[in-house]
């Protein structure tokens, strides 16, 4: 973790020195890049909003609870502890939601228990698939079912493998 803390300022320092050597006008150049942030945010905002509204409805309405109950036996069959099923389900929708769930699991079962370790790996190996797809494909009329399905299947199999690895390693 110390390494990561050092990495970012070191990267900035190295790049800006190199750029100065190449006679780049740092101030003009940096602001030119930063300017692109505004149209970018404007273009992704509606998709971001739709996705987060959907994720809120998904968890607050009890749909995620019902799905969890329904899928638990299936998860157990694949070696995923039922305690982490809600985490696996919410991860593709919401980063903050899954972080909250992970903390709850750590508090309830301990971070070093088998369940805690499985939860950590499930959290770490998964990505917020719907959020990434909403942002990356903002405004495109492309067919998204296949890439999203590919990402979801891969992430789910990753949880299965991760839980298995937690038992071995």
């Amino acid at each position, binding site marked *: 973790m110390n390494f990561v803390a050092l990495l970012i300022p070191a990267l900035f320092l190295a790049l800006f020195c190199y750029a100065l050597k190449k006679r780049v006008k740092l101030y003009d150049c940096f602001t030119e890049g930063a300017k692109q942030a505004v149209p970018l945010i404007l273009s992704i905002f509606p998709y971001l909003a739709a996705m987060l509204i959907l994720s809120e409805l998904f968890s607050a309405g009890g749909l995620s609870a019902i799905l969890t109950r329904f899928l638990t036996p299936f998860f157990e069959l694949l070696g995923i502890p039922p305690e982490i099923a809600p985490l696996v389900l919410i991860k593709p929708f919401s980063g903050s939601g899954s972080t909250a769930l992970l903390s709850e699991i750590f508090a309830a079962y301990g971070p070093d228990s088998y369940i805690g370790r499985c939860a950590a790996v499930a959290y770490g190996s998964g990505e917020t698939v719907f959020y990434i797809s909403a942002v*990356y494909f903002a405004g495109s009329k492309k067919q998204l079912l296949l890439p999203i399905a*590919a*990402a979801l299947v891969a992430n789910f199999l990753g949880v299965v493998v991760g839980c298995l690895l937690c038992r071995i390693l």
Partner: protein
Amino acid sequence: MNAVFSVIFLAACLLFLLTKPDGFLPAMLAGAEKAAVLALSLLSVYCVWLGFFKVLERSGLSQKLSRRVRPLAKRLFRSDDEAALELACNNLSANMLGLPGAPTPLGIRATEAFLKRNNGYAADMLFVLNATSLQLLPTTVIALRLSAGSASPADIFMPTLLATLFTTLVGTFLVWLFARFRSPNLGHGTKRRRLTVKKHGGSRNL
């Protein structure tokens, strides 16, 4: 995406109607509010990183760095668009370094560039690589475990790395497979398949 949105939305809506109809609008507004707050924080994150990457681009360093992996990236994304490939390479390196927030603006711009040339395959590949991203250092999890009183918070490093390696391989393989089913004349049997895996192995050493 329309299908996914409709199905989940209608199911959740129905559930609200049956169990707690007065919670529906507050939940929607809460979601929209989260989006507004997130958009503001993303605006600041993107400002910093887009400024950084503009300097990287202008100094010529970005081109220099991505030139080495260019042949691999060309095959991985099946694209000749130099500018888009450079963005995609930077996106993947930022991802692997775990720079928080940095990959997204690059990924968005690379996807736009790929789609402008109608290269849906490249856009899908980039999306899946991001959505199954390799985790070299799961910093959030380690920090959370530390604060929860774990004896060795970093010991999930190995299983996480292997699990994400696995997800990346499965994801890229599926994208390749879907592309083959959609236009079978694009691939060349097992030769293509071996290439995909090898390409990917190479791109990871960015």
